[in-house]
């Protein structure tokens, strides 16, 4: 394992303090328990709190700021945070309009946020994101994994919350965006959990993992490495099979890197994906390309398509001021 770390036990705290230092004007870091809030507490709005295991940076702390999250609770690498973090974060940011948890659909995240919700002294609701179509629902009961689409949910609900919308309305938009969003990922290399010290999975030089999870969980199948257009075609296929968009639908296309794949290749993937979507009669109205939901050092990428409507598009375009997303005003 080759990483820029000192002691494994200090990695998270040191990295978070670097994050907070580099973005002083945007965020504040709190320790014991660990959570990140906006530097300036918002007023009179539903507060959005998300969190999850670390190793997916900039998710979630990178999305704390005006127009998006009010607080984020980072857990250990790939390990969901604990209820005390969520409770402390809620107490720090709640301002009378209630708390909305945004949670990626993993047993650990769901159960920890659930226990926090049970103990929470505020009005509360939870949006669970589950955009990963690599997982075919039928075979089991817990639903799909939440992956890169989570950023779109957090961005849109974040914008709505700034308008003063109430908790139920915010939750409804979150569920709507999630239901209109589908993602598919592929890995070319594995990631290595620092505390484990070795790659989560072995993958041969001529292989790729189609449908990999953002924790390096196995996907749909191990396949021979192929040309980009063939790989992207399978991802788009899986996504459209799930979304079944009508011709002429307007979409947001997100090409997300897991870390190890160069931006040059992400843009090539975007080029292929856009071509294929347009061939299906879809209109790409909004785009985002870069590392937004990563998996430690893994080389690979995911493609996410979100079916826009006027409301989602408006909230996507709305001003956002966070470490990782910044536009508008």
């Amino acid at each position: 394992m080759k990483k820029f770390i000192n002691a494994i036990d200090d990695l998270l705290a040191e990295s978070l303090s670097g994050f907070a230092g580099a973005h002083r004007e945007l965020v504040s870091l709190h320790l014991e328990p660990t959570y990140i809030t906006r530097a300036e507490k918002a007023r009179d709005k539903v507060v959005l709190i998300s969190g999850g295991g670390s190793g997916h940076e900039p998710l979630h702390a990178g999305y704390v700021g005006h127009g998006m999250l009010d607080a984020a609770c980072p857990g250990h690498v790939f390990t969901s945070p604990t209820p005390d973090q969520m409770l402390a974060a809620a107490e720090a940011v709640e301002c009378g309009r209630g708390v909305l948890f945004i949670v990626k659909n993993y047993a650990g995240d769901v159960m920890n946020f659930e226990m926090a919700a049970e103990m929470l002294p505020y009005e509360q609701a939870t949006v669970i994101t589950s955009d990963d179509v690599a997982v075919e629902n039928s075979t089991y009961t817990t639903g799909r994994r939440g992956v890169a689409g989570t950023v779109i949910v957090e961005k849109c609900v974040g914008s709505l919350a700034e308008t003063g919308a109430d908790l139920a309305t915010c939750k409804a938009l979150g569920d709507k965006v999630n239901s209109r969003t589908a993602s598919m990922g592929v890995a070319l290399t594995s990631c290595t959990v620092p505390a484990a010290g070795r790659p989560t999975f072995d993958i041969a030089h001529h292989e790729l993992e189609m449908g990999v999870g953002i924790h390096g969980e196995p996907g749909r199948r191990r396949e021979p490495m192929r040309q980009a257009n063939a790989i992207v075609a399978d991802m788009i296929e899986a996504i459209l099979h799930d979304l079944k968009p009508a011709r002429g639908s307007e979409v947001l296309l997100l090409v997300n890197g897991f870390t190890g794949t160069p931006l040059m290749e992400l843009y090539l993937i975007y080029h292929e994906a856009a071509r294929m979507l347009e061939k299906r009669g879809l209109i790409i109205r909004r785009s985002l390309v870069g590392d937004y939901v990563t998996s430690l050092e893994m080389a690979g990428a995911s493609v996410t398509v979100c079916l826009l409507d006027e409301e989602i598009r408006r909230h996507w375009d709305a001003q956002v001021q966070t470490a990782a997303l910044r536009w508008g005003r």
Partner: protein
Amino acid sequence: MQTATILRAAAAARDAIVANEALIESLDREIGDGDHYINIRRGCQTVVAMRDDLAALPADAALQKIGTKLLSTVGGASGPLIASLFLAMARNIKENGGDTLPQIAAAFTAGVEAIRQRGRADVGEKTMLDVLVPVAQTFSRMAAEGCDRRLLLETLKREAEQGMLATRDMIASKGRAAFLGERAIGHIDPGAKSSQVIIGAICDLAAE
């Protein structure tokens, strides 16, 4: 049940988990995300480190304190589940006492039930419950029959192993492995393994 016993059990569990690091870790790498060993070890170490704060407390208060602490230190899926087990055991012993073997069996059963509730899961879903549920059932039955202690411990240990091994051929319908469908078959569930390791260690300790 004495708090001292709980602390000895925690130390034994910690040693057993560490002794099985490679296996437990690789199981979660195969069908999970590779952190189960780290999470469980963190939990065991936390409890062992609480020794001084706990020593003076009655068992139910100690279990309560342990559960709360685990909830804020373990994280992942196993954190809230294991915490629920301790908190439910604490509640049960507080109400019904925890001195006799049947009382302890009842408390453990209540703890396992709490995991089922929290995880919305049951036997056969390829989780730690495939170890915990049969162990709890056998424990209660044999404790009620007032059987020989040695036989009880051996049986529980065997139950735990069988439950753990049984997860190998299951498709998971709960937890991270549930996302793998068919591909989870042939891999033992890491939580089932760690639970079996801990139960085995505690049985050995009790047999001394």
